[in-house]
Structure formats: C-alpha cells, structure tokens
C-alpha cells in the first residue's frame, strides 16, 4: 500500500539534482533553459535542488572524467531510493567525442545504472522534458534500431 502510494507520488513531481561530470556546459545551459519561462518545468513540480539527499533524480551531463568518477559514485549513493539516473546529452550516452579518450570513462553506462539516456548535442529543452517524462513512464519511446539489408 505504501509502495503504491510512493509510486504514485514519485510520478508527480521529481526534484532533480544536476551533476556536471566534465561537460562543455552546453547541456547544462539547456537544462537551465528548461527552468526558464518558455519551457517552465516548474509547472510540473520539477525543480533543481541543491543537495542530492533531497533529490529524486540525478541529471548527469558530461562524459565521466577520471577525476569525477568517484564523486559521481558517492553522489549516487547519497540520493535516497527510489531514484532515477538521467543521462543528458551525447557525452554520457555513448562518450560523445571523448569515447576513446584516456581521461574519460566512455559514457555514464560504464559507471552508474542509468534509467534513461537523452541524446543530443545539446538536447533541446523539449527533448529533455520528453526524456524526463519517459523516465516517469508518462510517454512511450519513439526510437528503435533500424536495419537495412540489400537483397
């Protein structure tokens, strides 16, 4: 009963904690754009929070650099369950341009269990809203792998 109540509450308005693991700040500015009047995520109750201990979701940007890897793991532990890990941008999704660099871990999937990836360089604020909504189970997925074979 209390679990179902938690699940219902969780879908309503999540508080996100934003982590920059070495990104160029493009995705960070687009996340900030989602708070601005035109896209206004605060009408859904989603707000940026200053401490991971109050957060429901981690919004991670950037390819995870070696220096930040341990801190990201500690931040992930600090966020209480149930939690969501949302990777914003092409860098945490697949490593971006830095996928084979000696200084990065090649994407967030190699470091944390990720719930949803929002690719884009940087993703539009609408794409971030869509990604968060998909993480909450409100909208279906629109992409699938495509294969073409010549006969």
């Amino acid at each position, binding site marked *: 009963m209390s679990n179902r109540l938690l699940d219902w509450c969780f879908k309503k308005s999540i508080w996100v904690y934003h982590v920059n693991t070495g990104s160029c700040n493009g995705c960070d500015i687009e996340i900030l754009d989602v708070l601005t009047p035109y*896209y206004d995520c605060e009408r859904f109750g989603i707000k940026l929070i200053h401490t991971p201990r109050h957060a429901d979701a981690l919004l991670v940007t950037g390819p995870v650099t070696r220096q930040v890897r341990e801190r990201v793991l500690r931040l992930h532990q600090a966020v209480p369950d149930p939690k969501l890990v949302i990777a914003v941008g092409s860098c945490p999704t*697949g490593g971006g341009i830095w*996928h084979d660099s000696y200084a990065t871990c090649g994407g967030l999937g190699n470091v944390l269990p990720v719930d949803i990836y929002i690719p884009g360089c940087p993703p539009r604020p609408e794409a971030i809203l869509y990604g968060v909504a998909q993480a909450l189970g409100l*909208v279906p997925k629109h992409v699938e792998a495509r294969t073409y074979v*010549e006969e």
Partner: protein
Amino acid sequence: MFKHAISELKEVILCLKAGQVTLGYPFEPHPPESGFRGLPRLDGDKCIGCGACANACPPRLISLDDQDGYRTIDFALARCTYCARCRDVCPQQALAMSDQFETATPSPGDLHITIKLRLVRCRECGAVVGTRRAVNKVLNEIPEKLGLPPEKMDWLDVCLSCKRVRALREAVLMAEVDS
C-alpha cells in the same frame, strides 16, 4: 528611496507586461525550425557503401566491416554530435538529418542504424574490391565521361593488386608482339 520605488514599479510593470509566455509543449507539439539537425536518417536504397561518412565523422561512430559476402556499415548514434558532416560528404545524398529530437531511450542500442550491402570480391584473389552498388555506379556513370573502351570494363571486378599484375602481363605481351 524614491528612485528605488520607481525602479521596483518599473520591474513589476515589466513582468506584468511580459505575461505568460510558456509554450504549449508537451501538450502541443513544438516542431523545430527547418534545417534542424536532428537524428540522422539513412536511405538504404541510395547508399553505395563508399565509407565517406565514416571518414568524415568526428566521433568516429560509423564503422565498416567486410565479412563473407556483405559489407556491414553500423552507425552507433549514441555518441552522435549532430554535426551533419556525414550528410555533407555523402556522394549519394543518402543521409539526411531528420527533425526528430524526441530520442530519449533507456538503452543506447536503440540508436543504431545498420546497413548490409553485397560485396564484389576480386575474381582472381578474392580480396574486397568494393560494394556491388559502388561497382555498378562506376559501370553506369563513369565510362561515358572517361571514354573507356568496353573491354576495360572487364577489369572492374579485379582488385588493385591483381589489376597491376594484369597490366604488367599485358604490357609484356604487347612488347613481345611488337618485337
């Protein structure tokens, strides 16, 4: 004090004049401008498997693999930076940047495009010459412009090394005939 009050009044009027500007998204669609560089789309019928896109891609997400009778070109779009260099260099205009930006997914494997094209192997040594589509393109489009004689078309399914050997043999034969 007075100036501060006027300033605050101006700020209030500014905010009231601005009103509510929030877009209807996500309840209404908000399509991007034309020319928006969204998720790349490949037209499988046009691709000839030349690999120019693989050469131009900055994150090097396009990989070519020649196995048995097929060349497999895989686009690992998880790390795409949407720069559109692949679209710009494709000689067949097979790649286009769609306007799709709702590409969030729980697994990056969904962001893959794979195309398999038939290969032409060298008739003498079996090395890869190119894809059948690329060889056909050469057969159909280039000879008229170059004025190549039809008997040279026979050499199109021979690889570069074997072509050199053939050319040498022909040259030797011609020399013997002359002398």
